[in-house]
């Protein structure tokens, strides 16, 4: 008996395939519908560039959060990008294949650890360490950057290793044959050839760092102010939404959706940047 014909199955698969896209579209539509009217009403400059943030009294400037988000993300890149790229180079160029086959999945396992666990470790280990050795409250921009830097490692390492692994062996052989050392080969030939993939991995890691919420709430201290030092407590855009969503009403709620719009746009830009950088590499080959 034939419960589902060829056509039926095809339709079901089509519907499931589109459900994901529909989900994305609905989310985008919803956020923009709730957030955009607010942005137009307040004015984008008043919203993004005003540090007058007192939602209870009708002031919705998110400038301190924007600055904090940027610093936290940059900090995370400073920690995560060099470590990640160095790790990827080591894994692809200096480690025998069988070892890499064990180590790489282990690193990717890091991506599966829930962010609360990172946050918990940050609160219990990292924050007291920073407090004892550098001063300040411990819950700080620095703590958030380090935790996020570790969290983006799997993204950076796995995409970078793929990019470096995709460099044809003939490049390396040619370089070695010309008398270059192994390290010269790596940084003058292999890294140049894999550059676009590595950049893409860093941009994607950046997207993850900007969007991370739970771990940041736990370790960043959440003070609404423009940080003056890495030891200052900060509140990022995502943390602000999560902390205030529970009780926000009316304009305040719309302001949070507008914050969501800002994040959405930033992450969209980062992702398309990463995609276009990746595409370039394919074209060149």
């Amino acid at each position, binding site marked *: 008996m034939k419960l589902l014909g060829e056509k039926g199955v095809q339709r079901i698969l089509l519907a499931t395939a589109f459900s994901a896209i529909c989900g994305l579209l609905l989310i985008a539509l919803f956020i923009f519908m709730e957030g955009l009217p607010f942005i137009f009403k307040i004015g984008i400059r008043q919203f993004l560039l005003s540090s007058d943030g007192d*939602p*209870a009294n009708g002031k919705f400037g998110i400038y301190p959060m924007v600055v904090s988000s940027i610093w936290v993300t940059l900090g995370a890149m400073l920690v995560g990008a060099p470590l990640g790229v160095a790790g990827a180079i080591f894994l692809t160029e200096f480690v025998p294949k069988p070892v890499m086959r064990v180590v790489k999945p282990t690193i990717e396992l890091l991506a599966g650890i829930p962010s609360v666990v990172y946050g918990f470790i940050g*609160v*219990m280990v990292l*924050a*007291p360490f920073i*407090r004892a050795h550098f001063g300040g*409250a*411990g*819950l700080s921009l620095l703590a958030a950057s380090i935790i996020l830097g570790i969290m983006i490692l799997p993204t950076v390492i796995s995409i970078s290793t793929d990019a470096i692994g995709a460099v044809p062996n003939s490049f390396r052989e040619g370089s070695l044959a010309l008398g270059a050392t192994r390290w010269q080969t790596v940084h003058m030939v292999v890294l140049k050839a894999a550059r676009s993939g590595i950049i893409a991995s860093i941009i994607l890691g950046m997207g993850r760092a900007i969007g991370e*919420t*739970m771990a940041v*709430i736990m370790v960043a*201290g*959440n*003070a*609404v*102010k423009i940080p003056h030092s890495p030891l*200052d*407590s900060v*509140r990022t855009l995502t943390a602000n*939404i*999560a*902390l*205030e*969503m*529970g*009780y*926000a*009403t009316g304009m305040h709620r719309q302001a949070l959706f507008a914050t969501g719009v800002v994040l959405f746009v930033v992450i969209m830009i980062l992702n398309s940047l990463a995609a276009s950088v990746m595409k370039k590499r394919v074209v060149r080959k």
Partner: protein
Amino acid sequence: MKRQIGSWVVACLLVLSVSGCGRSKTSITMAGSTAFQPFAEKLAELYMSSHPDVNITVQGGGSAVGVQTALSGAAQIGMADLVELPPEAQPLAKAVVANDGIALVVNPANPVSDLSTEQIRDIFNGKTRNWKEVGGPDHEITVVSREAGSGTRSSFEQIIKEITLTRDSIVQDSNGTIRETVANDANAIGYLSHGLLNERIKAIDVGGRPCTVDEIVKGNYSLVRPIYLLTKGEPQGDVKAFIDYVLSPDGQQVIKTSGLIPAK
């Protein structure tokens, strides 16, 4: 976000519990004040053990959530710990089930053990920035506060008066995380529900009065706020039965032994 996930889980559980079994079980959802949440959970547990046909779910979220969910009907009972209820809570029926002191807490390593209301105000306003100005060691003060929707915070600010919280303040979103932060930071000062004090943090005297049940009952300790259970319209049926239980000698005894001050 986690709260929304929480309410989704609750919604799913509700659907399951309604559709799953033939015998219909009454569900009561309580939401709001994180200061009262652990006590509500305890009371709900005791009540459910003697009334197996009733299912009570207790959620946190803060007092503002308590008022909102009671108004919207998302929770049958809203919990709020506020000195003054906001104007939008006017139409709700309210019952004071307990009183709760707000303890000013520091790390046990901190030698400071008494602050006046003015000193507290200056610390939270960011005017006093170093512990040595109030008789402590030469360390910068880490102010730890709750988020703006918290009942503990608004009660605290209403009683101390004229507080514009310093921008350097660390913000935590529950009584429990305040306790963790203060327990982990030798220079921190925060405030939380008296019922949640433990040995990892030190409650300091306010204007010479220690934060103890005795002083609160006598009315000497100034940082006290009532805990309200809010319902949309007069409570009825199982909701009424549960609130009556909380107000009964048994329920009040539970509240007392858990560290809160009974309303009666």
